[in-house]
């Protein structure tokens, strides 16, 4: 499986997490399965909304964008595309920074941990590492 395909798979995992949290936030899912931490405290805090949308919905958008980029970049013609690799790195960098800020809020402002949010943050770190490896590989091949 290529790096881009792995990225696409990780994006789908991220979509599942973000969709789960979004559905909770809009009331479709009543209770979060949260064996560790206080997911409800985090997802009901004032930090759980941004510009009128749940934070999880923004995450969902980022994962969908990653999936699209990774799928397009997995095609035979574009598997060595540097612009696509750069776009994925840019998206991953932004998402890692945003996740770091959210994790800071959980730890030091809300004083509660949401295991799903942390999973998403860890996923973005993994995506970032893979995307940088992908960019280096396709740049070297040029």
């Amino acid at each position, binding site marked *: 499986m290529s790096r881009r395909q792995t990225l696409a798979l990780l994006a*789908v995992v991220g979509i599942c997490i973000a969709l789960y949290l979004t559905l909770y936030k809009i009331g479709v899912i009543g209770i979060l399965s949260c064996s560790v931490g206080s997911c*409800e405290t985090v997802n009901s805090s004032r930090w759980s909304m941004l510009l009128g949308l749940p934070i999880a919905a923004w995450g969902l958008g980022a994962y969908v964008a990653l999936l699209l980029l990774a799928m397009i970049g997995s095609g035979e013609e574009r598997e060595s595309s540097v612009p696509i690799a750069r776009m994925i790195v840019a998206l991953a960098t932004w998402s890692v920074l945003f996740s770091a800020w959210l994790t800071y809020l959980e730890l030091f402002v809300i004083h509660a941990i949401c295991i799903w949010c942390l999973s998403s943050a860890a996923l973005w770190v993994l995506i970032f590492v893979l995307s940088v490896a992908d960019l280096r590989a396709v740049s070297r091949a040029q």
Partner: protein
Amino acid sequence: MADKGVDGGRGRRPGVVSKQRGNSSQRFYVVLALVIVAGALLIVRAARAPRAIANVTTAPVTPAQAEGYLLGNANAPVQIMEFADFECPACGNFAVITEPDVRNRIVNAGLASYRFFDFPLPMHKNSMAASNAAACAADQGKFWEMHDELFRNQPEWNGEATDNPKKLFLGYVKSLGMNTDAWEKCFDAQTHQSRILANQAEGNRRKVQSTPTFVIGTRMIPGAMSYDTFKAYVDSASKEAPATAKVDTAAAKSTAKGATK
């Protein structure tokens, strides 16, 4: 000698490469489909889960020792609990700005019952006294009136404003037409201290960490919120409520009227 049909990079023929690539793609799509199906199944399962049973920290109200102070019909389809500290500014804002709408449009409409639980925080010097003041007012059927007076006048009796809140509380007792002697006797003896502590213990049991904290149906929501957000939580809880819990609107209205008079 160079072979025309050899892939220079890996020494494989294009046909082989293409076949391998096809196999890899197939594998990828199979794994992708599996992940999507697994994720979708988990989410659908979560959405259909019996919510009240799955809940751990926010069981429906089961008044034992900690019964709070009820407003509305106890059998309404949605049970709301508020854990609040009379001296906390956010609780005051909610009580003054949002709660009137909650009472008129949700509780009096029979959509939900509302229970207030004392959750005096240690950093608020006069909060326990205020809880006692309200509990003694409850003896004369004026808990909610006293509750409203306390929140409305929070700036004048809070721990930073005065060391003697009783004097101010007595003023509210008089203005509400209560028997001041009975109230004072009750207040001085801290007759309802155990009730207040039981309410507080209920909050601790539910891991309340800040005030106000609401339990609406099976959800625990920390922090004050707007009426629209509050109503959305009630609507969501209402959909989860058992179908057997029908609203006795008439009873709800009469109870609520009595309590809010």
